[in-house]
């Protein structure tokens, strides 16, 4: 059962990702990105990471995509292939294909035969416990980083008087 759900979501994500980098309309691109991120959230939940999945929904779909749509609306991007893509498309496709071939070969060789067991239980309770005991220092550092990013974004986007 899990396998079929995974294959369906994975194929949808792959199609959406390819459409995202080839579409001629930037707003459609943002909606394809939404599809990729929602698929990723579904895969997180499938892979026993409910909390990460819902954080993905809240943060990416709720905040990042809306922010990107705002960015697109504010910058009035032109529509059309030549305006959105540069001349080195073939080279870019070659590089991306080479990366995919190399990583997939290495990964399949290294992890062939390893299985994901869906019957185990990974609870949010243990995740929270570990996050606030062993990883509490990185957690605090990340909150300071978010504050710094917030201040930085406001300072950058503010109009000079």
């Amino acid at each position, binding site marked *: 059962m899990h*396998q079929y759900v*995974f294959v369906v979501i*994975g194929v949808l994500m*792959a199609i959406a*990702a*390819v459409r*995202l*980098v080839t579409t001629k309309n930037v707003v459609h*691109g943002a909606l394809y*990105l939404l599809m990729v991120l929602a698929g*990723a959230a579904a*895969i*997180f939940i499938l*892979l*026993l*990471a409910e909390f*990460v999945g819902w*954080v*993905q929904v809240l943060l*990416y779909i709720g*905040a*990042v995509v809306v*922010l*990107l749509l*705002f*960015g*697109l609306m*504010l*910058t009035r*991007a032109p529509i059309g292939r030549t305006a*959105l*893509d*540069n001349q*080195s498309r073939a080279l*870019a*496709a070659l590089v*991306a294909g080479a*990366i*995919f071939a190399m990583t*997939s070969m290495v*990964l399949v060789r290294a992890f*062939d035969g*390893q*299985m994901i*067991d*869906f019957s185990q239980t*990974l609870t949010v309770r243990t*995740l929270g416990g*570990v*996050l606030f005991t062993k990883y509490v220092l*990185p957690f605090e550092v*990340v909150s300071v*980083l*978010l504050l710094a*990013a917030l201040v*930085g*974004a*406001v300072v*950058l*986007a503010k109009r000079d008087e």
Partner: protein
Amino acid sequence: MMPVTWVLLLSAFLFSVGVYGVLARRNAVLILMSIEVMLTAVNINLVAFNAMLKDVEMMGQIFALFIITIAAAEIGVGLAIVILIYRNRTTVTVDEVSLMKW
């Protein structure tokens, strides 16, 4: 039970699509979107390894959470820079922003 290689192949594909997007696109906002796809691919890998290794300390999921947080910070600052460039140059095409390029 499901082979972990399926998940790894999906995330490798998403990552390469993101690389293509970063290299082939000219619009700065579309480049940021492709970067998000690459980060998502990495997160899928981390969560899959967490499930495969049955890690009781949930290292993979915690790392994925940190990456999501930092991606949010990155997109905020990135879009602020893009909007600043648009205000000064009235373009977000990265080819035309080459003042500091050698």
